Every structure is written in structure tokens, then in C-alpha cells.
């Protein structure tokens, strides 16, 4: 399949169209909304399912050195990408140091839904991937926050990390659920999966559609309200930065000798920007940074870009490079 067919196929998947429906409904100011509790329930379901399946796959293939190295690569990427993002923002946008650091943190961390969309594109393409990439995703959530705080403290002020915050970030709900269900999957293996397969595998994509509908609604609302902060430089950053991230992910993926699917996911993780864990951490640690900037950029620009064009592009590149 060439890249255009891939992209077209991807754009016509129920998942992407559900996201588009959400954005459209929101921009048209429809009163369509998904209750907060239902959205949280779906995100719990998705995290549990993706973690569990990752764990089962590791139980199946065994632990090896590459697993450890991949985790390390993820952590390094999460630390390093904010520095690149920060430098880029200084050049491309007129953001203050503080706002730039806050935005940068988001791009070092990851979006688990983008990751899931990546796995579902792999599935459609008939490609497999290393199950522990879920653990890499979890490992990449937090380090970026440290980098951002370091960037801020280097400047004026000298901000030190509140003692509670660090525990809060590492033990935030998504990480705990993802890692916890990963270990449950590892411990129970194929038999465990067989028991709950018709809950966590069969309906997975359908739930993902409704979840993306909700993300579209929220992103659309953000675009409507945050649109005024989106100057051209920032917009461009929201598209350029994931491309840079994906190249970094590609490098590490190839270096580690991951499968084509694994390389794609490494690219996707690096390219994606957080919209749950990092915004919450930023509100606590850098309350003066403007949330509408980082939320609109991450959820309204980079997320849809990755979802629609990014992933097929990364896959084409990954296949070219790995020959897979």
C-alpha cells in the first residue's frame, strides 16, 4: 500500500470520522456532549485494555534486553524532546519562557490515544509490535515534566519542585492503571486474556470511536475558545514538532532493532503530545502558564494532525527504513 492509500484508508476509518464528527458538532455549537463520568469511564476502559494486552504479549514473548533498552530510550526521549521543543518555540513563537516551557513539557510526554490509534493502524496493515511498547508509553509520561521545570528554573525565579508534586505525577491515575494492568496481563498471560477477551478486545475499537467523538467535542470547544491564542508560529510548531519527534523516535527505534510496528509506535509516542497528565501537572507546578495555549496546541492541533496524516506518514517512513 502506498502512503496515499494508507492515508485515505485511515481518514475513512470510523475512528477518525468519529473524531471529525465531534469537532464539527462542537464548532457548529451543537449541544452534543458526553458526560464527564462516561468519558472518564471510557478512558479507564481503554487504559486497562491496552495495558492488559501489552502485559499478555510480554508474558507470551518473554522479557529481553531490548525491553529494558526501549524503556531507557523512552525516558531519554521524554527528557530530551522538551529541550528541542523549547528551543523551537523560542524561534517560532513569541511565547514567554514560562509558556514555552509548559508547552514543551507536553511534547516530551505522550498521548495514549494517539498510541492506541497507532496500534489500530498497525492491525489494519497486518503488522505486529512489541507488547512492551505500552510500558515504554508509561515510562515516557513523566520525565518531560522535569525537563520543563528545569527549563523554567534556569531562567528567572529558581522554582523548586514541591515535594508532593513528584509523587502525584508518578502515581497519577493513568500511569498507575496502565502499569498496573500491564502487570496483571503479564501475571495472568494468555489464560487471563481468554477470560476477559470479549470485554477488552472485541468492543475495543467501538469504545475508541465514542472516546474520539468526545475528544473531538473537547478539541472543537478548545479551538473555538482558544483559537485567538493560535498565532501562525504556534500553529506551525504544532505540526513541525511531531515531525521532529517522529524522526527522533525513528532513530531510537531502528537503533534498538525494533520490528516495523515497534518502530512506528516509538515514532508515534515521540510525535504525540500529552493532554491529560501534563496539563494537570502544569496547573500545579506552573499555574502562571496559560492553559489555553498548551491545551489548544496539544489537543486541537497536534492530536488531529497525528491522527489523520501523521500516523500514515510515520508508517510509510518506518516501512521504508526497516524494509518491513
Amino acid at each position, binding site marked *: 500500500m502506498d502512503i496515499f492509500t494508507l492515508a485515505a484508508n485511515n481518514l475513512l476509518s470510523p475512528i477518525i470520522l468519529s473524531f471529525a464528527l465531534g469537532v464539527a458538532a462542537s464548532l457548529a455549537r451543537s449541544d452534543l*456532549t*458526553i*458526560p*464527564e463520568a462516561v*468519558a*472518564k469511564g471510557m*478512558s479507564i476502559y481503554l487504559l486497562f485494555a491496552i495495558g492488559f494486552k501489552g502485559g499478555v504479549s510480554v508474558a507470551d514473548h518473554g522479557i529481553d534486553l531490548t525491553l529494558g533498552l526501549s524503556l531507557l530510550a523512552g525516558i531519554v526521549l521524554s527528557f530530551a524532546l522538551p529541550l528541542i521543543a523549547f528551543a523551537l518555540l523560542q524561534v517560532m513563537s513569541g511565547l514567554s519562557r514560562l509558556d514555552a516551557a509548559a508547552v514543551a513539557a507536553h511534547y516530551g510526554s505522550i498521548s495514549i490515544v494517539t498510541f492506541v490509534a497507532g496500534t489500530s493502524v498497525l492491525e489494519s496493515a497486518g503488522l505486529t509490535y512489541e507488547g512492551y511498547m505500552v510500558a515504554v508509553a508509561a515510562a515516557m509520561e513523566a520525565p518531560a515534566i522535569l525537563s520543563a521545570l528545569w527549563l523554567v528554573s534556569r531562567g528567572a525565579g529558581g522554582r523548586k519542585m514541591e515535594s*508532593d508534586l513528584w509523587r502525584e505525577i508518578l502515581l497519577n491515575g493513568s500511569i498507575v492503571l496502565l502499569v498496573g494492568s500491564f502487570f496483571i496481563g503479564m501475571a495472568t498471560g494468555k489464560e487471563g486474556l481468554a477470560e476477559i477477551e470479549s470485554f477488552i478486545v472485541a468492543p475495543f475499537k467501538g469504545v475508541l470511536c465514542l472516546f474520539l467523538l*468526545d475528544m473531538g*467535542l*473537547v478539541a472543537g*470547544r478548545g479551538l473555538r*475558545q*482558544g483559537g485567538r491564542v493560535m498565532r501562525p508560529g504556534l500553529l506551525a510548531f504544532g505540526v513541525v514538532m511531531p515531525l521532529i519527534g517522529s524522526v527522533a523516535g525513528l532513530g531510537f527505534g531502528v537503533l534498538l532493532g525494533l520490528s516495523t510496528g515497534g518502530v512506528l509506535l516509538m515514532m508515534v509516542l515521540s510525535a504525540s503530545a500529552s*493532554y*491529560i*497528565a501534563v*496539563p*494537570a501537572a*502544569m*496547573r*500545579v507546578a506552573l*499555574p*502562571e502558564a*496559560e*492553559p*489555553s495555549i498548551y*491545551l489548544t496546541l496539544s489537543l486541537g492541533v497536534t492530536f488531529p494532525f497525528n491522527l489523520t496524516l501523521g500516523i500514515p506518514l510515520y508508517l510509510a517512513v518506518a516501512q521504508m527504513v526497516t524494509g518491513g
Partner: protein
Amino acid sequence: MQMHNAKRIEITIEAIMQKRLTQALENAGVTGYTILPVLGGSGRSGAWSREGQVSRASGMVQVVCIRRPNEVDALLQAAFAVVETHIGVVSVTNCQVLRAERF
């Protein structure tokens, strides 16, 4: 019925700061408070709504605390230290309560 003068302090603050605020209140000797959910709102930092949100980054809550008049200042000091750098609103109202021994 026998009523006693008290002050009702309402603090609307980001959900993410809730634990820090109640911790600060407890350190300031507050023995009771109630937390109400907030659906949405609007202020200088724009409008927001809870609908569809997964993250706690953009939700708020309202912490309500009834306190004897003479102990309100300590409470406000503690609350202000937390609220200061954050978006949020603090208001104080005179009220009367039953069972004063509780406050």
C-alpha cells in the same frame, strides 16, 4: 432555636488544587468542610465546562467551610497562600448555625 453566629467561607478553586487547599485548611485548624462539584464557569481566564473532560486539569470544585468568626482570619491566610497564584474565588458570608460546638 438557639443559633450562633458564624462565617461561611466559599472557595472556588481548580480541582487539581483541592487536596492542597484542604490540607492547608486542616493545618490552620479547620475541622470541617464540604466539597461541592462545579459544572463550569467563566472568568478572566475564559469559559470552561466539565463536560467530556477526562483530565482534572480544567475542572473546579467549591470548598465550603463554616467557621467561628474569630477563627476566620487564620483560615483565610491559609487559603490565600494556596489560591494566590491560582485562578479561583474566595467569598465570606455571615451566617448562623445550630450546634455551635461543632465548629
